[in-house]
């Protein structure tokens, strides 16, 4: 029996300590709910973005952009055709980019330089949508990843040329 004076009126009643099993069950429930909520948040932005990338690809936007990016490849010490996996990576994803890299004949240094550019900038539509959901500007971050990725690749190529 507790004293009637040791709690303020209106203060929360002392709770019995939760058992280990109860804590695990509560955490599992909260985790599944948070997981489903996050899954739904991501699905709502990723699926339309994925549809848009398929349309872009179908309209020939990838081929057109790759032609534009061709001259840039020289600055990275890469053959012009390397623009194709780069742009495929930007619009689609890393797996698609790797697939189209297989078609090229690159030396290890060129593979590394192209890998740096693609690892920094890829899947820009879908991942941009996720950043948008987090409250950022997906377009600005897409542009940043292209520019910073190319700059990182160019810098790496220069350093590798020196050593």
């Amino acid at each position, binding site marked *: 029996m507790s004293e009637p004076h040791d709690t303020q009126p209106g203060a929360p009643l002392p709770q019995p300590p939760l058992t280990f099993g109860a804590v695990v069950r509560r955490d599992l429930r909260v985790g599944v709910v948070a*997981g489903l909520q996050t899954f739904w948040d991501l699905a709502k932005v990723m699926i339309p973005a*994925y549809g848009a990338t398929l349309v872009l690809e179908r309209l020939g936007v990838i081929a057109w952009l790759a032609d534009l990016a061709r001259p840039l490849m020289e600055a990275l010490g890469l053959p012009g055709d390397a623009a194709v996996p780069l742009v495929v990576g930007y619009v689609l994803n890393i797996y698609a980019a790797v697939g189209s890299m297989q078609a090229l004949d690159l030396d290890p240094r060129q593979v590394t330089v192209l*890998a*740096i550019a693609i690892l*920094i900038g890829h899947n820009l539509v879908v991942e941009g949508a*996720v*950043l948008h*959901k987090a409250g950022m500007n997906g377009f600005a*971050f897409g542009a940043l990843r292209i520019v*910073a990725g190319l700059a990182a690749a160019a810098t790496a190529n220069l350093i590798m040329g020196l050593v």
Partner: protein
Amino acid sequence: MADLLKTFAAGSFDLLLRVFLIVVPIMVVLELFEGTKAFRAVVRAWARLVRHVGLDERSAAPTLIGFLFGLAYGGGVIVRDVRRHDLGRRQVFIMSTFLSMVHAIVEDSLIFIALGASLFWVVGYRIVWAAFVTLLLTAVAGLLVRRYRL
């Protein structure tokens, strides 16, 4: 047109399945272990590292998830934590910039290492580059915010 829709349907299913199979377990594991000593020790150790790019302790967990598993999954945890306790625009900006430069460090890097890329460049150099870009952009963004009261 029909084959485009078929690709879209199959691709969407694939994407949703992958996201589901990764996001739900991550959230459950996070929820189960978030309170444990071991988890807090890992997050604190990680927080000591990412403190140097301007991230505080509350941003450490979402950044770690994104760094290990990918931008979409880290982004999911960021969205969750923004909803639970407002992280602040500055922290979300820093996290987004850092994770834009480097994420899914194991899976993405391994794909290119398998193709013959150098481990040092695709992992070590990329992390240093990410820290550099994050510090640079945070400074620039800070200047712009002060100058134009954004």
